[in-house]
């Protein structure tokens, strides 16, 4: 099999995994901080 298939698979898994991790962390942080601020303002 062409070696580039393995290279692209490794880069796809890594870059996709890191992008997914950062997206998940950003979304969770944003959601929690927005909710905490909204609750703080209401009280």
């Amino acid at each position, binding site marked *: *099999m062409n*070696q*580039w298939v*393995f*290279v692209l*698979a*490794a*880069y796809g*898994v*890594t*870059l996709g*995994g*890191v992008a997914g*991790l*950062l997206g998940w*962390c*950003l979304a*969770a*942080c944003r*959601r*929690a*901080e927005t*909710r*905490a601020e909204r*609750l*703080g303002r209401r*009280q």
Partner: protein
Amino acid sequence: MHRFANPVRFLRIARPATGWLLGLGLVLSAVGVVGALFLMPRDYLQGETVRILHLHVPAAWLGMSGWTGIAVASLAQIVWRHPLAGVAARAIAPVGALFAFLCLATGSIWGRPTWGTWWEWDGRLTSMLVLFFLYLGYIALSAAERERGPDARAAALFGLVGAINLPIIHFSVQWWNTLHQGESIELTGTSIAPSLLWPLPFTMLGFSALFAAAVLLRMRAELAETRIEARLRRAAAE
């Protein structure tokens, strides 16, 4: 270290630091990835698959560094009862687990065309797989005892005991005659040609900065969730 025990002071530094680390990490990783994929020559022996090592090495380094961070935070939690230590350790766990998984996945993908096998039960590969399972165990344990707050010690003890695996991973290539090769980069020098080596510092530093940014984001999210719980409890009591 106790200067940062106050979450308000920690957040004052963590908020701008997250953006800087994200920006720096993205730029350095992009330079490293473009360099490794398009600018670097192919290796005379490994061919194109040498490009995978520029992801595999940072993933291995961060998978092991993550557990070092968990062990240090666990020690700070047990000995000094640092209020942010448990938060830091819980934030590191999923990030470290992902990098340990990426180390195994990229190693397996590299191994198929180079060694002729996806997997071999050799010392280095098996001890790295054990590290990945330790991360999963830590995530489950810390989630189960999170509600107990600062008195929760089981996950911290698990974090300390699990650190025994780190020297086993490091020395596995010396202790056992394994398929995995020994160290190519040491403090005294390297056996890798500079034309193949130069993208590695970029991916190492870039992914390290992204790792740190992800940990800070997880810590900020947990601190915000703690504030939400406290406010809801106060509102229910009034």
